[in-house]
């Protein structure tokens, strides 16, 4: 799975069809992407930091990694949905992008999620921008067994794409730090509860979000002898394994490249104390 998607990665200027504010600094970008070769759950693309514009501008310089939130094949390509949080210059410029403008896309990139065994329950733990990496996984995992999605945020309004998860007809549990919805506290506490449930011993845990959240999720799962699979969100320059900028240290020494060996990695394969 690792090689194939990279082998088919393309570079294309995609047309912005919509770029909608969804509250809580969240926005949904709909891109018409010609020749999109298709992607697996957990793969991502590099997007130009803002529209290509009437003339070239070299600041900001680097593309920004974004999960393929959802891909709908269509004649001659696909429509990609990107769910993003406006956090800095690149995403602010993306937020200002108008329908009809072009955004450069390089993808699909990286290694996606392995699916659960048949009958195995999947616990998907998401927070912050990481939620966007989990939607396609949740959709695909349904065919294998029960899927429970645990989403965390500071406040209910910060949650990304919650209605889409509801529409999947899977079980959705929410934790908010301000108690505005669901469990009042951290999403990793919801994970502890879920793993304490009868029959949870076979559960497979997935986590994507802020590093401290993924690290904690891994601790919780591993403490109970469960496997935890994470999707990392490191800074990237290239996205396809050539700048070596996205390296995360392995416990046995050496590094994994998040963009090439990941972004999906087994939590046990990451030296969390040295991961930004």
């Amino acid at each position, binding site marked *: 799975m690792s090689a194939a998607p990279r082998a088919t990665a393309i570079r294309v200027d995609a047309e912005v069809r919509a770029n909608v504010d969804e509250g809580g600094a969240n926005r949904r970008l709909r891109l018409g992407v010609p020749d999109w070769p298709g992607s697996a759950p957990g793969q991502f693309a590099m997007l130009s930091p803002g529209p290509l514009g009437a003339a070239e501008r070299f600041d900001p*310089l680097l593309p920004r990694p974004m999960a393929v939130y959802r891909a709908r094949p269509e004649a001659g390509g696909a429509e990609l949905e990107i769910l993003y949080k406006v956090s800095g210059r690149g995403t602010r410029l993306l937020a200002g992008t108008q329908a009809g403008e072009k955004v450069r896309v390089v993808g699909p990139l990286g290694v996606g999620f392995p699916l659960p065994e048949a009958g195995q329950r999947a616990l998907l733990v998401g927070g912050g921008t990481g939620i966007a990496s989990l939607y396609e996984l949740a959709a695909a995992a349904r065919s294998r067994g029960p899927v429970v999605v645990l989403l965390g945020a500071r406040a209910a309004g910060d949650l990304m794409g919650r209605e889409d998860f509801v529409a999947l007809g899977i079980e959705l549990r929410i934790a908010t730090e301000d108690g505005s919805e669901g469990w009042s506290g951290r999403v990793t506490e919801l994970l502890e509860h879920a793993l304490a449930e009868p029959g949870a011993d076979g559960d497979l845990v997935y986590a994507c979000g802020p590093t401290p959240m993924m690290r904690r999720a891994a601790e919780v799962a591993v403490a109970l002898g469960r496997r935890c699979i994470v999707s990392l969100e490191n800074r990237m320059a290239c996205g396809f394994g050539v*700048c070596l*900028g996205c390296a995360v*240290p392995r416990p046995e020494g050496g590094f994994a490249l998040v963009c090439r060996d990941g972004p999906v990695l087994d939590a046990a394969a990451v030296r969390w104390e040295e991961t930004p």
Partner: protein
Amino acid sequence: MTAAVDCAVNLGGIALRNPVLTASGTFGYGNEFAPFFDLERIGGIVAKSLTLEPRAGNLPPRIAETPAGMLNAIGLENVGVDAFVAEKLPLLPAGLPVVASVFETEIERYAEVCKRLAGVPRISGLEINASCPHVKSGGIEFGQRPELLARLVREVRRTTPMPLLVKLSPNVTDIREMARVCEGEGADGISLINTLQALDVDLATRRPVLRNGLGGLSGPAIRPVALRMVWQASQAVKIPICGIGGILSGEDAVKFLVCGATAVQVGTANYLNPMAAVEVAEGIERYAAEQGFGRVADLVGTLRPFPSGR
């Protein structure tokens, strides 16, 4: 129209179908770009710098963005010279000239790496990365001390007759002096520039943005400095120069040729645009055709001074 243009150049004994190489460390080992374009459409590649043993490199964060540029401190990460020859070289198309880049922390080790590359038929030439800190001189770069640079070039020159390029550090008072040293010690060409030593700060933590503290600045931001150094070096030596620094388009590359570079290397641009190198090659050919140059080589060193006057 562009069919009429002869794009071939010779870089210190390395015959290139066009003057566009990819810069070491920005093109991986080459095969990563195979999905994006036919590698044989560019002049050649300079592979990631190699050390004697495999190296792991620095802890993250390793990269950060700056105005029209980026900072990096990857460290010496590479698969090691032997694995490169055994595993990476065979993945590259036969018609693609490959320059092996070498860096180490001691002269003897540089020489040893060169020895191991010397005989390899798939390798068209060597590039000595002199921007590496010399451990014994307390972190000063080889390329920052004429006498140190002279000894380095002399020793590696001994190891092989194959085309030998020396990649200079831009963090020096006088690049001409360094260029003359390389020429004097028998280098076949000079590559410049490597990254400018730089630093940026994360104001949330008041820490350097890079784990390593200092890093190397690359990208369009440094292009005017690179053009200046290429022009100065081309005035100081007769051996060919490979121009590097912030090249994103054919026009950018032509500026280097006009300033005296025989060929160019595309670096950071490969990250923003995996097809940058081939588009640069096309752009050079287009410019030559539009300006009525039958041979791209004829563009080299065509910078016209202004009439002096007050």
